[in-house]
Structure formats: C-alpha cells, structure tokens
C-alpha cells in the first residue's frame, strides 16, 4: 500500500506535534469500563466526517461530487429529533428506532433524487447537488419550524455519545459501515463497476454496465452515510439545529477524499485513504485547540496546513522541490531503517 504512505505519514506527523504540546496525548485508559484518551476522542469526534467522506469517496469515484451532504446531515438530524419530540415517552426504544428509520429513509430518498438528476436527467453533479445543498437547509428549517428542537432521550443519546463494549458507539458504527463498503466494493464487484463508470462512462455503457442504476445507488448511499452522520451529530448534543448542523462538512469530506488519494477526475478510489484523510482533518482541528491557536486565526491556520498537506501529496510538487536537493535514493531501503537526507 505505497499509495497510502503519504497520508499515513502526514497523520503520524500531526499526532507527534500534539505530543509535544500535550504530555499524555498518546495515553489511553479505561475509566468506568469506557476507553478514554485523546486518540479515542479524535476517532469519536471524527466519526461523522469519516462516514460522510466514505459516501463521498464512491460519488467522486464515479466522476461526480455531492455538495448536498451537509444539508442531508441537518435534515436527518432534524427529522429524527422531531419524531422523538412527539413520542409519548422519549425513552421508548421502539419509538426511537422508528424515528431513526424515518430520518434515514428521508435521507435515502433525497439521495435517490440527486442520483436521478445526475443519471437520468443528465445534470452535472455539481449543479444537481447544489440544488439540494441550498434547498435542503430550507427543508431542515421547515422540519424544525425554524427552532432548535431539544430532546431528552437516552436511547437516542447512545448513537453519538454512548459506549458499547468499552468503545464509543460512533466508532462502532463507522467500523460497521466501513466493513460493509469494503466488502461490497472490494470482495464483490461493485468497486470495479464504479471505477469503470468513473473512468469511462461511455465504454462502461457499451460493456453492459447499468450505469444509471449504479449512479442512483451511489448517490443514495452517500446520502445514507450523511444521514447517519446527522443522527450522530444531533444525538451528541441532543438537539437539532437546521441552520448549523453539518455546515461545511461537504468541503471537509471532499478534502478528506482528495487527501486520501482519490482523484476528482474519477476512477480509482481508496477507502483506507479517505479514512486517513478524514482523521488528518480531525486531528488538525484537535491540534488547533491543543496548541492554542487564537480563535480568529484558526481558519487561516487550517487552510495553511491543508495547503501544505496537499502540496506534499502531489508527486509533481515533490519532484520539483526535492529533486534538486536529494541525492539519488538507494533502490531499496530496509524497513525500519532511518534515512537521513543530506542537503
């Protein structure tokens, strides 16, 4: 997996920076049967982004893009909270499961709509999903009636804030979804078909691939991931905010996919790369807090780091900058051996 070496290295470097500022950064301990530690927190708070980015990976692999995921996050959270707030008992497990079902079904329906616009109507993905990106925020506010719906439901709180088998529940959800996508795309043949459609849509059609159906499924799945992420986010704060839930998450997700090595031009995709990309972004957010970057400069700081990360990722840039300074590398370096670069 040479392709993942750069994102993995960058993630490791970011984590090491944290170690300098926070003594016990790598420490993980069990308190009251739950795992605690900064690394666990990165996974836990990064879970919604990882989910959204995984769905986005498949969309981008088809040469598409989905700008509406942030709105779907808000809609799904709003729908779930609205349903729960009308329950006679907010702690009823059946009632909460029903609410989750309605919210996710709505998310999938919206994704099918995106897929329909892209595959059947033939609108460019960036425009097709821009519609829902804008309209979706309105829809979310319509659901919440412009208010922030606050709920008090223990079963619902489990999704974003609970633990199971000592692990945060969100991490378990991510693991299950990741395993599912990896199975369907890599053990079954969905991955090849997606990469083929993204690499050459017309050749794929002439090879007998049902690309329309495939696109609709991919957009629906992306929306489902965003829907689950929406549940996590609203569950974590026990409320639904149609305005701000999932705001700009589409940009972080696209960034995670790109950092992970999947090209926006479609074709080859890497699920592992996307997970690393999302973790890099989440670690960066954590780092900003832990090293105490002044709040008014955080966005600028983040942009700067992301730019550096993207440049380091680019083989063309590396070739330009390092070629003149680096002596020809020995053909093989034994694993684990330190390499020093003399300038």
């Amino acid at each position, binding site marked *: 997996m040479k392709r993942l070496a750069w994102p993995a290295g960058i993630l490791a470097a970011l984590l090491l920076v944290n170690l300098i500022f926070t003594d016990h950064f790598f420490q993980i301990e069990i308190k009251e049967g739950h795992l605690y530690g900064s690394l666990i927190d990165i996974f836990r708070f990064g879970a919604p982004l990882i989910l959204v980015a995984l769905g986005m990976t498949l969309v981008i692999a088809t040469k598409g893009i989905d700008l509406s995921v942030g709105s779907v996050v808000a809609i799904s959270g709003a729908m779930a909270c609205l349903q729960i707030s009308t329950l006679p008992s907010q702690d009823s497990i059946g009632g909460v499961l029903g609410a989750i079902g309605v919210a996710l079904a709505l998310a999938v329906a919206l994704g099918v709509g995106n897929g329909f616009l892209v595959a059947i109507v033939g609108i460019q993905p960036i425009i097709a999903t821009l519609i829902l990106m804008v309209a979706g925020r309105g829809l979310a506010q319509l659901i919440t009636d412009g208010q922030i719906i606050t709920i008090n439901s223990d079963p619902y709180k489990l999704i974003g804030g609970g633990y199971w088998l000592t692990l945060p529940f969100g991490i378990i959800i991510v693991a299950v979804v990741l395993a599912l996508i990896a199975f369907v795309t890599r053990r079954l043949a969905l991955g*090849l078909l997606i990469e083929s459609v993204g*690499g050459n849509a017309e*050749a794929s*059609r002439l090879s*007998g*691939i049902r690309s329309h159906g495939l696109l609709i499924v991919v957009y629906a799945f992306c929306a489902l991931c965003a829907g689950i992420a929406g549940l996590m986010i609203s569950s974590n704060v026990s409320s639904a905010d149609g305005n701000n839930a999932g705001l700009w998450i589409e940009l972080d997700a696209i960034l995670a996919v790109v950092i992970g090595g999947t090209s926006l031009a479609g074709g080859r995709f890497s699920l592992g790369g996307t997970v690393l990309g999302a973790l890099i972004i989440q670690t960066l957010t954590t780092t900003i807090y832990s090293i105490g970057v002044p709040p008014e400069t955080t966005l600028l700081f983040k942009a700067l780091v992301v730019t550096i990360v993207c440049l380091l990722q680019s083989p063309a840039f590396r070739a330009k900058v390092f070629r003149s300074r680096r002596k020809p590398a020995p053909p093989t370096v034994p694993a684990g051996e330190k390499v020093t670069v003399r300038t």
Partner: protein
Amino acid sequence: MAEAILRMTGIGKEFPGVRALDGVDFRLLPGEVHALMGENGAGKSTLIKVLTGVYSIDSGEIELAGNRVAFAGPLEAQKAGISTVYQEVNLCRNLSVAENVFIGREPRKFGRIDWREMRRRTSDLLRQLDLPIDVAKPLSHYSLAIQQMVAIARAIDIDARVLILDEPTSSLDAGEVAQLFRVMRRLKEQGIAILFVSHFLDQIYEIADRMTILRNGRLVGEYVTAELPQVELVGKMIGRELAELERLDERPPARTSDTLVEASELGGRVAPFSLTIREGEVVGLAGLLGSGRTEIARLLFGADHAATGTLRIGGDQVTLRTPRAAMARGVAFCSENRREEGLVPELTVRENLILALQARRGWSRPVPRKKQDELVAKYIKALNIRPDNPEMLIRNLSGGNQQKVLLARWLILEPRLLILDEPTRGIDVGAKAEIQKLVVELSDGGMAVLFISAELDEVLRLSHKVAVLRDRRLVAELPNDDTLTTDVLMETIASGGAK
C-alpha cells in the same frame, strides 16, 4: 544529393526496462516525403517524440540545418521549425476552427486579439487545402477527417521546415487521402521535408520517396521506395515470413447455416435497411468513412435506438433499448473508437478484459479471482498480448495490444454475433494478420461476425458476403464469389449500386 536538413546520429533512448531506441541513425532531405516504417513498438513513436522535444535523448546527437540542437520541449522544437500532427487529433474540440489554428499565437491588434484577421487567415489557409468550411464553428462540429486536416493546416502555418505526420490517414477516406497527398506534394515543392508514418503500405508507395525501417528499436536500413518491393519491406519490418497472411487468401465458401440475425427495414441514423446474418457467417460492411457502417453496428447492438423496422435475433423479434439487452441476446460490439468507447485507461489489463463479463454478472456476483487469472492468462497467450502482465494499466499498452484486450473482453462472453468495427485500424502488420486469422477461426467455430473495415482487400479476404454502404444507405449486398474484386467493390461504392 542535397544536404540533409535533419540528421540524427546514434540516437539512444531507454525507459525503465525497455531500450526503446538503440543507436538509430536517421536523416531527412529537404523536399522529400520520407516514410518511417516499423511495427508497433519498433520505436517510431519514440523517435518522433525525441525529434519533437517531448523526450530527451540518452545518447547520440541531432543536427538541424547543420547546427547541433537539443530541444528542451515541444515548443522549442516547434520554434526551430519542426511541426507535428499526431495520430490522435490533438486539438481543442470545443474551440472554433480558427481558434484551433491560431491558439497560442493569435494575431493581435492594439494588444487585443484580432478575431476578424484570425478568421480571414484561417479561411485562406484552409482554402489552399481545398477545405472551404466555416471557420467560426466549433471543431467538434466537423468530422474526425476534417479535424485532422485542420491539425495539418495548423502545422503547415507554423512555418515548418520539417513536418511530421504521424498516422494522419488512419481516419481519412480515399478522397480525403488524395486531398492530403495533393497538399503534401505542394509542400514538398516548397522544399519542406515531410516525415510520414502510416500503416497503409499502398499509401507509402504512392507518396514516399524514401523510407527508413526500424525494428525493435534498431535501424534496419534506409531505402529508396521505388527500389524496395512490398514483400521485402514487410519482411524487413516484421523479420518473419508472411505465410499466415497468404493462407487467408482462399475465398471462404458461402454459408448455408441457420439465420441468426434478420433485420428488416431497420432504420435510425441510417436509411432503413434489410440484412441477414447466418450462424458462422462473416458479413463484411464496405463503404467510405461516414457512409453509415458504424451506425448499422450500433443499431444491431442497441447502442442507438431504431426508429423503424424490426429486428429478429435467433428467431425472436427483439427491441434493443440498451447494449445490455443486446448482450443478453448474444451480440458483442468492439467499437472503432478505442479511446472513447472501449478503454477504461485507469484500470488494468485484467480489469478491462473481464469488464463485460462482470457487467453481465452484475455487482453481487464477482468473477472469482482464480477464474479471472485463468481467463486473462488464456487470452493474453491466445492473442499474443504484449507485455504479458495482466496487472499493467491498459493505457501503457500500444494501440494494437489495447485492441487485442478489447477483443478479448468480448470473446470471453462467447457471443453468437461479434461486431468488429475497424478492428485492424492503426495496428501493425503482424497484429493485423493475427486478428484476421482469429476471425476465420471464430467463424469456423460457428460465431457470426459483422466485419467493418475501410480496407477493401481485408473485407474481401474474410467475408462470405459483403454489404456495401453509401451515404448512409445500404446500396448492395454481394456474395463473395470469384467475380467480386476490390475494383467491383469500389465501383459499387462510387456508383451507389445503380447500374
């Protein structure tokens, strides 16, 4: 003999694992058409890319008009007077014809682009080439043939001393080739040296004064065209006897097997036509570029929808809405447009090869990896695909080998009707013979083949019967007996079947 305008001595170029050029000498005289000959992978493209500054050389030297040169990039080569027209048209199809001709060197007036002047000069230029088209229209409005001519016009206009034409004729019909040759002769008279690459031997003998032959990256020799018989040329290019090609020269006996495909008054982007194809029969489609050959193929494959008529496959009346539906009926279609309708460049040879099979099985039933490896190994061996590495990205293969992979993609499905649209275009003599032999074998095994080719002798050699097209209309259906010759076919095309 005149002093050479271009002299390359001892050129060497190495890629990881491959010695693409090994001590090649090459010279070009002013006012000559010089053919560069060799099979796919012989080093022709590499030599051209070295000459145009795309690649740097590892050894040897290049002299242009007596001065030693080393180009750092294509732009430098162009400025020195070496212009190139590549095999695949390298223009921006969304821009207008005039913009394409002048892109990067637009005429200016007061610092602003002078559109009027640009259009006027383009019109003049194209009129010299007998191409009176509207230069304000986007390039994509015109056929591939005209796009090619525009690319040549652009190259000519950049005051070229050396003009390189890499497979310019592969997508032109006979009339357009004649037009191109007229232009080439005129340029020759002006003292321009023309380097010409083509797989059509007849064209080489018509236009080239001299030729240089390469094989496996080495120089075989430099010859005067008139002094080298065709048979010797082919022998020098491939280094082996052409017995296989000659064995195919016997005419196949007519088929009397059951009818597999019966189209009656089927029409869409072609005028309604009727055509039957029997099991194990090879039906040739002959006609000029744009005469409707590909359109017929696409109708039979469900890639386009029929507007009129009926189609029966294996006795059942069918309406093909998608290629998938045609595949379910046992029809396979290998497109002439490899790059846009065949290859998925980012995928490996193995993945490209099993793509149609996997599509038929759907996403939930993957072809087991072991089975994939078996199939891929079998077809790499059977079709002699080089290099024989199934995990290589297909875009790194040469054109002929890409074509074989795409052919294998369909052969795996064991179709009842295989439609081959220009399967031998732009590939070398050896690969061509292999594909022709394969068609004969498949048809002997009971597979029906619809064979589309611009090369009439190839159509005649393989087909049991030939359907002739002209202006998007099927004008004649001729049994391939002793009376049918390429002359008869050409006459039929020219007269539109009217006697």
